[in-house]
């Protein structure tokens, strides 16, 4: 099995929100890296998970599938999932796969944080 080409960094940005900085390629092989980052954020007490895609290099359909399963876990835990930093190209892909129906998409971290606390 190929190695994941994805790195994450978890930042606590307020009492109840964590940003997961995503860097690299979001593919099927990134599942463990993403899950570990999510668990770290949850252990830190986050009720809002914000994915920062500013340094996303590539995402295929399996990567989109990972986001769907992450979203289900987040909804089950009564948390919220927001994103920012998606390029126009990936915003289109969220539209195509209809992820934008369920995941908040923002341009900047400030906008996502404001929405998190609205």
């Amino acid at each position: 099995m190929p190695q994941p080409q994805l790195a994450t960094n978890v930042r606590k940005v307020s009492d109840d929100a964590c940003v997961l900085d995503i860097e690299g390629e979001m593919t099927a092989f990134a599942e463990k890296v993403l899950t570990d980052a999510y668990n770290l954020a949850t252990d830190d007490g986050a009720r809002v998970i914000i994915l920062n895609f500013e340094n996303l290099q590539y995402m295929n359909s399996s990567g989109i599938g990972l986001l769907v399963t992450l979203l289900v876990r987040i909804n089950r835990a009564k948390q919220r999932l927001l994103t920012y930093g998606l390029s126009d190209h990936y915003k289109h892909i969220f539209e195509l796969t209809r992820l934008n129906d369920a995941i908040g998409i923002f341009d900047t971290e400030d906008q996502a944080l404001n929405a998190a606390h609205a």
Partner: protein
Amino acid sequence: MTDQTEVSPPTPSGWAEPTPKVRLSHVPEGAMNLNVEGRQLSGPLQGFGPMWQKTYTVSLPEGTASPEEVVSAWKENFKDFWLPGDHFYAPLAGLNPGEVALINSRESVPGGLMKLSTGVMVVYSDETSFTLMTTQGHPFSGWVTFSAFEDEAGTKVQAQVLMRANDPMWEFGMRFLGGHKTEDRIWQHTLSSVAAHFGVQSDVATEILCVDKKLQWGRARNIWHNAGIRSGLYLTVYPFVRFRAAVRSSRRA
């Protein structure tokens, strides 16, 4: 038949362009074309039933074929790997991003009592994978990713379905009328056929995971687009429509 130029061009990254409504570029001879044209795509978030992730894999021994060779052959021969008796009408331009395929299936209907017409769109395609996403009314709402990758033993070939039954009727069929088993059979047959194409006889490993047990009652109204109901109505009414047209035409003559 609609103009071929209506098909969205694939993006360089392998993704199709977003489309508010599905458009067919070509209706093959003999295909029943219902429940596809003008429909929206429908992903795993838009369905009604519990969310399932089903993974079917088969291994090809080292040296049999590279992941790129497997996926290339898979795309080229996709309709031949489909379950016998059902029809997958591949787009003329091939399984490229933005292309739409028609499916005429009896297997998807409990008891095979009638032919179901539905469709899928290629939303993603690269050298080692491609993904088909369903349209509104399809038995399930979601997508299937077909891929191949190298592992220690050789090349692993995989079909992974992420889906919810589209509406309460399909959910009933999935749970109580063997819908899930039929789906397993479809993809197990497909993977066996891919392996056989490369001269390998191998069992298909199946892994089923319930990602979300909840029913999405807010999506119960998806039944309005149910392709089974609509195909059934069409097939019931169609002989009368043809008969009436024939009578009118003979009167005019």
